[in-house]
């Protein structure tokens, strides 16, 4: 089977249903779609094990924070690659920041271990079933998750730089 966005999407929807796979777009040649927390692990396992797809390489995953989207504040992005067919796919899961829980992918990919620790460290996403979910790049005593948008980089109390002078 030739892997095209339509073929792959059709196959996944056949398997997991239209309720679980939605918003498929193609922003940069890589098919991107959304799914649910309950489906994600089964979906990635299916992509890996299906003989026609063989999407067996976890390229990267990372968290994203959208503070303005109600009940969809946090996002986890997974990007996978079929080395055999040179086909990439990107999957996103949105979930509320009040319930920042995701299932762990470490049972499928060894690479997920540190990537999930990084997402936990930066965004506070808790991966259930992770063998050692501790901070990885920041100190353990840190009490917040620094990549969240409510922690802007620059000191907001500074008054010597006024943006209005630059028309912003």
């Amino acid at each position, binding site marked *: 089977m030739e892997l095209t966005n339509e073929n792959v999407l059709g196959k996944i929807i056949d398997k997991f249903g239209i309720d679980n796979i939605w918003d498929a777009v193609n*922003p*940069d040649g*890589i098919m*991107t779609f959304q799914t649910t927390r309950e489906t994600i692990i089964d979906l990635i396992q299916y992509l890996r094990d299906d003989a026609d797809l063989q999407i*067996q*390489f*976890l*390229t*990267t995953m*990372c968290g*994203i924070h959208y503070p303005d989207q109600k009940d969809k504040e946090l996002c986890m*992005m997974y*990007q996978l690659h079929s*080395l055999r067919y*040179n086909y*990439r796919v*990107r999957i996103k899961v949105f979930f509320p920041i009040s319930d920042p829980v995701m299932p762990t992918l470490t049972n499928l*990919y*060894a*690479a997920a*271990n*540190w990537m999930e620790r*990084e997402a936990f460290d*930066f965004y506070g996403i808790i991966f259930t079933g992770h063998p*050692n979910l501790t*901070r*990885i*790049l*920041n*100190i353990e005593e840190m009490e917040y998750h*620094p*990549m969240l948008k409510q922690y*802007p*980089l*620059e000191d907001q109390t500074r008054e010597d730089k006024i943006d209005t002078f*630059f028309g912003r």
Partner: protein
Amino acid sequence: MEQFRLKHGLALTEERPLTTLNLGPTHPATHGIFQNILQMDGEKIVDAVPTIGYIHRAFEKIAERRPFYQITPLTDRMNYCSSPINNMGYHMTVEKLLGITIPKRAQYIRVIMMELARISDHLICNSILGVDSGAFTGFLYVMQEREHIYDIYEEVCGARLTTNMGRIGGMERDLSPKALHLIGEFLKRFPKVWAEFEKMFTRNRIFIDRTTDVGAISAERALSYGFTGPNLRATGVDYDVRVMNPYSSYEDFEFEIPVGSKGDTYDRFLVRNEEVWQSLKIIEQAYNNLPEGSYHADAPHFYLPPKQEVYRSMEALIYHFKIVMGEADIPVGEVYHSVEGGNGELGFYLISDGGRTPYRLHFRRPCFIYYQAYTEMIKGGQLADAILTLSSLNVIAGELDA
């Protein structure tokens, strides 16, 4: 000590006590700031707990506050052994977002610079592997060649280590006659040096004994860990971003992908050695067939104008101001672009909401992935072998911690 073991889930043995040994964080053999708390049974490593983050500089967070141009200096501080590849990988990502195609000449210049960077990366890695196994001469010998590569960088952009030589939309300036001359000289001289270096190690009995079957990893485990680059190719998988998803005209050049079979330290050494020859081949082709034309794209909204123009022309001044202040019209979008970095697939995942700065920029850093497997690779081996495994993985602290 028992409390430490319990905290990290380490095995308690009744018969004989294990020794806890700090390998790193600051020791010449750990090549940067990596800490490993080893549990030793005599000379044998029973378990290892790695700690990273000692030089974490929050580049992903900083990038969210910087206009697109000003992110380049962050990228060349990641893998500082081959900074042009990082720079250009980032530039290509932004070009993909903006939809800019750059002229052939600029692409070829990029290829030359990226391959020079790969050579300099590999020659550091391989010569340091020699140092760690007790052979210092090779290191000194090839280090002067790295100086020559840095001379070329200096001629092209003025800097030697943190190069910043590209621009979004091409190169900052064209290759000068002197730069071309230096590259030509390098192509003439370097093969002889590299052949001698190779001779010093590849059939050296002591080196072979020290590296064969040391720190081996299977292709299956390597893929599960997300290995790419020479470390994956040493296990026998011929995945190379330059071939699979060509960028910057790599499809124009003929080269081979060297692969190993066992995935041990010796294989990784050989794969890097051979890759240097292939890089030379690519540079030679690009150098001999360097197309005429412009060294940057015709995209005044995004390509920083030459400084002389800024003093003379009103348009150039306006564009310069808009680009530097981050007022250029960046489209909304989401892109992933990856390049074959010095040690594997270096990816940039960029989300733009149309603002001055990226909404999110995530680096797919190959070193972050290799170091995760380090524990598994050294378990059951000797301490001295763990040092060689680390240097053959080519983990760069700046990229690991980003």
